[in-house]
């Protein structure tokens, strides 16, 4: 038990199949009689469609059908939806222009779906797509978020003047302005949060099937939340009954947010499967992933931070332009509002904060949640302006942070931006991180590097995030179209093993291990005797899926509640078998005992009795199978401090990360090895954003210039350092496991730590991400020339 319960570095149960090439991802699945879908995509960023001629394509070899936006409209198929309504500063809902699954009358970004060819082979489908003649009237495009509201910018949608989706406000800017005016010093900064392309290593894929005999559908999809996908497919788009649709998200090769959303391709596969009465399969090519997966970030922000003469923060004002892309993706609207502005207090006691966010449409791929979703953008704003403030106030960057931290005795702490932080110890994380980074020795390392002609710098990032999204009533009041609880079912078998069915979905996070650890710990079972089932709407209870570091905090808590129910029922059975009162039965580690005696029953014996109830309590139902739904009382608030140390070669502009120290507080840790992996991966993505990655569209034509791995620079093994990861543990006070969530922390913390380090090394105020060697080299040479 000790080696597989809560807190153990248990080996991952899911790994054997992946290590031996036996994982079952969507593209590994082939259905008898399947056809292949290929999407003809728009080559233009903005154009009116005058005519689509599919005549030649329809007659092409192997083609079964060709569909266009006109067919979609004729079948009255609904458009893709945005499931979160943001109310603007005037009390009006955001603009929600139609988002057809195949473009109708107009295309609005390069990669927009124009037509689909269904054929017997993928090659035949592609050949036929080349024969589709589309007559476009090319229109001017706007791709730059900063220019989307310009008077001269082309308008993407009817009824969206200035391409404005919403103009949203949190806090009172006039009050903040007054406080800034009275401040000893105001630090100001303009910054860009660069647009990113998620690039899960498994491209999106879908297989749609229709069974005419039962009038039912099956959709295999690379989804992070199969039940939510089913709900959207049925209730909002296809208008088919939910009980006749099964969505299966089998092994999924990474998501990072990009597989939360309902995309046109899976809808088309399911719709087309009924029309052609054959299964229809689609797998994205990597270039399609670049073009059509929902992108992340893409903010332009102005921030001002006021402080008194001691560096205590007095007020903060934030103005942000956020790109939505050409259409609203499933949860696009909440990312730069409720997941962003509510985190602008950071770890600090800044008394008043205002944030104005204008979300705009641009002729680019839709933008939605990507690892961290709003919280990396908030942390970047906060931790960059704090760094600028420290330098302008000539204060140590650690000291200015420490002076402004929310203190341990201030929890629960109500921020001026709506959230109530539940627990934390920010100074302890800072102290531990400074030791781990050997901050005391930095000055001598910098001097030594200077002797070698290299620039050394160090950067801090004290981040906080709101995870475990979260109380349904709260998110509902903020505009969410869904509840955000989670479900779990524990099915005990007569032989004493168990299945745990979870509504969360694992696509790399290790749920098959960690949820087994939670349940195994509570029910006294080794994890080998537990199977975790997820990702199939016909097997598991309705669940909300996995995103926002919520699976353990919400889904794990649901599993714990289900285990509590198992134990409660087990006590009744044990009381009967042991001829004692239920109140006298104690339970610990899989054993029921009559208190103070040696009369016991193991949970295995109880399970057997439940299924073979020959000697059984009269009024109790047989079976040992319990379901629980858990709706948390609050978000959870993981926090920590990351310190990055870099060395820059001025001859090449190459930034080498020579040290990365992270100390995180995730509350109770179920499996430290899994958590370390999540932290590492998050940091890698954050370093990617800071150093290497940046989505670039041609500013005139809207062509995607970074549309392949040769053009979009993903972090590789030789780009990254080893990470020093430490943890502190202040348990979450409001969920049964005391857990907070760890999936996004690294991606949130890393970019400002890196940019703070590089600007420190170069002695400059700011530099926009990604800090590529070219950009750094040019900066160094420009400085030398001045």
């Amino acid at each position, binding site marked *: 038990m000790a080696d597989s319960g809560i807190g153990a570095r248990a*080996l991952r149960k899911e790994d054997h199949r992946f290590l031996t090439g036996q994982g079952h991802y969507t593209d590994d699945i082939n259905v008898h009689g399947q056809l292949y879908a290929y999407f003809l995509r728009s080559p233009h960023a903005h154009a009116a469609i005058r005519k689509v001629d599919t005549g030649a394509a329809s007659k092409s070899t192997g083609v079964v059908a060709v569909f266009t936006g006109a067919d979609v409209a004729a079948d009255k198929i609904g458009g893709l939806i945005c499931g979160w309504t943001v109310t603007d500063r005037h009390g009006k809902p955001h603009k929600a222009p139609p988002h057809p699954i195949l473009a109708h009358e107009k295309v609005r970004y390069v990669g927009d779906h124009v037509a689909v060819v269904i054929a017997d082979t993928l090659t035949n489908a592609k050949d036929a797509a080349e024969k589709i003649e589309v007559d476009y009237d090319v229109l001017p495009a706007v791709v730059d978020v900063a220019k989307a509201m310009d008077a001269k910018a082309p308008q993407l949608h009817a009824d969206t003047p200035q391409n404005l989706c919403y103009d949203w406000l949190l806090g009172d800017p006039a009050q903040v302005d007054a406080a800034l005016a009275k401040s000893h010093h105001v630090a100001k900064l303009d910054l860009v949060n660069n647009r990113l392309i998620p690039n899960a290593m498994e491209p999106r894929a879908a297989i749609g099937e229709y069974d005419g005999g039962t009038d039912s559908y099956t959709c295999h999809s690379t989804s992070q939340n199969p039940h939510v996908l089913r709900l959207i497919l049925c209730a909002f788009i296809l208008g088919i009954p939910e009980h006749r649709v099964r969505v299966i998200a089998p092994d999924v090769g990474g998501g990072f947010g990009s597989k939360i959303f309902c995309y046109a391709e899976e809808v088309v596969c399911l719709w087309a499967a009924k029309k052609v009465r054959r299964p229809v399969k689609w797998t994205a090519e990597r270039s399609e992933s670049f073009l059509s997966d929902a992108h992340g970030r893409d903010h332009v922000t102005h921030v001002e931070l006021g402080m008194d003469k001691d560096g205590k923060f007095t007020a903060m004002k934030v103005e942000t332009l956020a790109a939505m892309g050409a259409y609203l993706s499933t949860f696009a609207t909440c990312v730069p509002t409720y997941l962003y502005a509510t985190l602008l207090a950071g770890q600090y006691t800044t008394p008043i904060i205002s944030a104005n966010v204008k979300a705009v449409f641009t002729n680019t791929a839709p933008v939605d949640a990507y690892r961290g979703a709003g919280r990396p953008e908030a942390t970047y704003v906060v931790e960059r302006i704090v760094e600028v403030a420290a330098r302008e106030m000539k204060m140590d960057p650690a000291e200015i942070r420490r002076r402004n931290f929310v203190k341990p005795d201030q929890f629960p702490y109500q921020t001026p931006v709506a959230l109530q932080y539940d627990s934390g110890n920010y100074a302890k994380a800072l102290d531990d991180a400074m030791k781990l980074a050997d901050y005391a020795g930095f000055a001598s390392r910098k001097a030594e590097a200077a002797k070698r002609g290299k620039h050394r710098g160090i950067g801090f990032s004290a981040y906080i995030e709101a995870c475990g999204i979260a109380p349904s009533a709260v998110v509902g009041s903020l505009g969410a179209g869904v509840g955000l609880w989670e479900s779990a079912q524990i099915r005990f078998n007569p032989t004493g093993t168990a299945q745990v069915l979870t509504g969360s979905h694992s696509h790399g996070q290790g749920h098959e291990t960690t949820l087994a650890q939670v349940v195994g710990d509570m029910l006294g079972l080794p994890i080998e005797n537990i199977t975790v089932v997820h990702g199939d709407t016909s097997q598991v209870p309705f669940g909300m899926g996995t995103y926002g570091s919520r699976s353990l905090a919400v889904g794990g808590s649901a599993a714990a509640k289900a285990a509590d129910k198992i134990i409660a029922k087990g006590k009744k059975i044990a009381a009967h078998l042991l001829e004692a009162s239920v109140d006298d039965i104690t339970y610990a580690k899989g054993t029921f005992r009559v208190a103070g005696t040696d009369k016991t029953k193991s949970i295995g014996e109880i399970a057997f009795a439940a299924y073979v109830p020959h000697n059984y309590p009269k009024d109790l139902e047989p079976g040992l199978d319990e379901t629980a739904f858990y709706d948390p009382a609050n978000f959870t608030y993981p926090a920590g401090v990351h310190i990055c140390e870099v060395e820059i070669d001025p001859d090449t502009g190459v930034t080498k990360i020579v040290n990365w120290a992270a100390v995180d507080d995730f509350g109770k840790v179920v499996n430290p090895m899994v958590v370390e992996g999540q932290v590492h991966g998050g940091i890698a993505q954050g370093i990617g954003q800071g150093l290497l990655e940046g989505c670039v569209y041609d500013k005139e034509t809207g062509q995607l210039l970074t549309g392949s791995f040769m053009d979009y620079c993903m972090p590789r093994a030789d780009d990254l350092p080893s990470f020093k990861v430490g943890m502190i543990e202040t348990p979450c006070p409001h969920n049964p496991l005391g857990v907070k969530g760890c999936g996004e922390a690294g991606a949130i913390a890393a970019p400002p730590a890196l940019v703070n380090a590089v600007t420190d090394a170069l002695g400059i105020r700011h530099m926009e991400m990604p800090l590529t060697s070219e950009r750094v080299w040019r900066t160094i040479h420009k400085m030398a020339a001045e």
Partner: protein
Amino acid sequence: MAGTHVKTTINGDSVEYVCEADETLLDVLRNRLALTGAKEGCGTGDCGACSVTVDGRLVCSCLVLGVEAEGRNVATIEGLAQGEHLHPLQRKFLEHAALQCGICTPGFLVAAKALLEKNPDPSEHEIRFWLAGNLCRCTGYDKIVRAVQDAAAEMRGGRHAA
């Protein structure tokens, strides 16, 4: 189209198949031979998810034609374990949790095995550069590097010769 008949060896077994002239080795493995361990992550040789060896040489199977396997010796992830006995690399990946979603893992294992055959005692630097042809979006590579180092040490010790 008339296909081409190919006779080859895959993971030690004699295999025959008929494939089209433009069909990649990856497509043949996945679609004709049901060896789906190798994955297509990009189709352009940039991500390494489709790594296999051909006559011992590490290649991206998305850049090799199916017909080019004629008379060769192809090794894929499916041949790495000996029955129920995991290769030391597989075992060390498991022990270090050097994988998360698992989609890139077969490629990393095949690439790491090819490295250790050339260089049984690689430095961290050498491991990172060798594996730079394989993209992983989940792990940040740290645990992968540790797992390869650990497996190399064990294999040098001769306890579990591959």
